[in-house]
């Protein structure tokens, strides 16, 4: 459980730090007429108030939940690894290719995000379509890796490392599929001439953040599976 605890400790430390800033030297029972205390709180940064879109914070919270989920998978994996029947996983080389494709997808989306900041709609379209194609390719690649493994006689129940491999890759892929749904919405908005730039920027930004995050998670999971 160490990994999960480390994650939670960091998260809790952040919450406590943020709360200390909110509460230190505040006398809650003091009333005031200005009623402006609210907009100095930490989510928005200190000092000047920059509204943070709800959906962005929503994504942040969701990513915390996702992190908790994968941290628990990693914890379970490392605990289970210590038992006698653990056999290291046979990693198909295809996984390296898939990782490359996923990195490429992230790069495309970053490109789209940069383009969105410049309001270059054609470049956004190129970036986001490129990202989408890479992502679909990644999922197909993962399925192919599953096929290779099972063709070699490594089924989910063959040994615990295999079990974790199928389980973790499936969970990761499901999260990516969920992302593709959001990506699809952004794409459809891109092709509507009436949609406004801030709206598109937000959509592209959220997708890019999500993709980077899932890439980071994949890299951690992949490293874990390679080294054990």
């Amino acid at each position, binding site marked *: 459980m160490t990994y999960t605890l480390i994650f939670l400790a960091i998260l809790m430390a952040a919450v406590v730090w943020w*709360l200390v800033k909110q509460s230190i030297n505040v006398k809650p029972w003091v009333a005031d*007429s200005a009623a402006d205390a609210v907009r100095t709180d930490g989510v928005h940064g200190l000092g000047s108030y920059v509204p943070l879109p709800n959906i962005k914070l929503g994504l942040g919270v969701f990513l915390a939940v996702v992190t908790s989920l994968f941290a*628990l998978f990693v914890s379970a994996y490392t605990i289970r690894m210590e*038992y006698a029947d653990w056999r290291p996983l046979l990693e198909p080389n295809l996984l390296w290719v898939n990782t490359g494709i996923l990195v490429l997808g992230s790069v495309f989306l970053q490109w789209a995000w940069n383009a969105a900041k410049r309001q270059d709609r054609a470049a956004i379209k190129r970036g986001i379509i490129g990202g989408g194609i890479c992502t679909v390719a990644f999922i197909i690649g993962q399925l192919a890796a599953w096929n290779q493994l099972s063709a070699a006689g490594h089924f989910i129940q063959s040994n615990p490392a295999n079990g974790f491999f199928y389980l973790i890759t499936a969970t990761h892929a499901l999260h990516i599929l969920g992302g593709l749904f959001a990506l699809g919405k952004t794409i459809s908005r891109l092709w509507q001439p009436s949609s406004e730039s801030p709206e598109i920027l937000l959509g592209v930004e959220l997708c890019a953040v999500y993709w980077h995050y899932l890439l980071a998670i994949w890299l951690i999971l992949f490293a874990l599976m390679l080294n054990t």
Partner: protein
Amino acid sequence: MSDVAHDALDFAPPAEVEEMELYHPKTWIGKYVWSQDAKVIAIQYGITAILIGLVALVLSVIMRLQLGFPHTFDFIDPANYLQFVTMHGMIMVIYLLTALFLGGFGNYLIPLMVGARDMVFPYVNMISYWVYLLAVLVLVASIFVPGGSTGAGWTLYPPQAISPGTPGIDGGIILMLVSLVLFIIGFTMGGLNYIVTVLQARTRGMSLMRLPLTVWGIFMATVLALLAFPALFVSAIMMLLDRLVGTSFFMPAMVSLGEQTSYDGGSPLLFQHLFWFFGHPEVYIVALPAFGIVSDLLSTHARKAIFGYRMMVWAIVAIGALSFVVWAHHMYVSGMNPYFGFFFATTTLIIAVPTALKVYNWVLTLWRGNIRLNVPMLFAIGFIFTFINGGLTGLFLGNVTIDLPLSDTYFVVAHFHMVMAVSPILVVFGAIYHWYPKITGRMLNDTLGKIHFWITFLGTYAIYFPMHYLGFEGLPRRYFSYGDTEFMSASSQDLNAAITIAAIIVAFAQIFFLVNLFTSYFRGKLAGPNPWEATTLEWQTADTPPKHGNFGDELPVVYRWAYDYSVPNADLDYIPQNVSPSDLKKPTAGQQGEIEN
């Protein structure tokens, strides 16, 4: 009292939160079934949770019948007894208490108390309820599949949960796990809403340190739930795979009922770690909202500021954070590395400190208060008494050494029912008596409420206090019957019978509550907007019950914390949060629901 100069700031700027666009459906179905209004969703959650909770209540009576009068009732046998135990526990912990506190009270109170029009993602909020309902239906369906529901105990420990020898290893356990997975997905959707709404949608002036403790409790509980439920999710999925495709995540090499199995090398303890990593925060997921709500009930009805607000907030946060590092105190005798015992006993007893402080502060809120002993207050004080008892017995079980004789006995059953069943449910009742006037516009009947309180409070104490002593004597839990166990005194069976009678009385007393809920909706005394003379924003709405959008044309502006009761030199013994210091100097004719003192 404030020393800020008021007069210079006579002008209060309008609420700074962006006005959100609400989806206003035209049809009845759109308003009350596929509703995106958090208040309607809250009521949907509440009704569903109470209905499924009634099922669990009936199951508990059946269990008590067997324990009090063994082998008298021929419809109870050792197999279905375990199924009743499991269903009762699972429903009460997850589908009733978690759903009711977060989905029910969370949805109703968060937007109103922070001064928001609605949750920030109303559509997702709606889906959350429907997924929860689906989870409940799948759970109910598991009772009717061949073999019936699972009888593995609410902890669902493998290998037993999916091995022959336990009831419901076919459809029952599978549907149970699926239902849990659905519940977690639904809850996560709701939970995102609660967090982001509290952080983002607070009205102007509602700083974090002005939030009512109810919101703090629900907020922190949601944080815990979002982080802890993934552990249950992971273990449920892994157990499903063990059951359905024969992986060995949790399943060791074993001989089941004389037959060799194909499992090999899995770790049952891994499941327990994952389960309790969820399971212990789960205790606080239920307790923290109760802590928050009871703080507000006590303050309102004692007409006194909650004592030590900042300490209360910090205690909630500290308890929440610590709750992630105490899980293995459920596993002292599980066969895990015994050296873990030192660490977890220490963390567990440390968590007693902030919890004790909360209790002190509740009692100190009563001290020099002006206590109105109306029904919500009775429940709140009943809660304190019960919680003190349940909390103190936790110090026995948390202390690893004393857990040796007491673990897995009725002492544990008595302890956790006291602390996380009766205590929170007393708060639920108190909260319903408190907020029902806002939800429906009518008061609940006082006499019925008092009858309900006295029977429930005294009855539950009569059930669970003596039960500890059965545990001392050594009566193991989850026993269908204990037969002629030599060390059990003959009179222990009489005590069991007495407990059963008390349990039946308590169960039937809930009829007073249900009748009250139902009849008061049509015939209750009209409540007016603020019958309790409370300060928080939900009592200051333009309409009672509040319409979709909660507040009228303009969102309220908050000038003070939620606990301005009996402020010296004020006209009334309460000042609502949206009354500005400059308004106080003028005649307060505009305020509704005032009572001249």
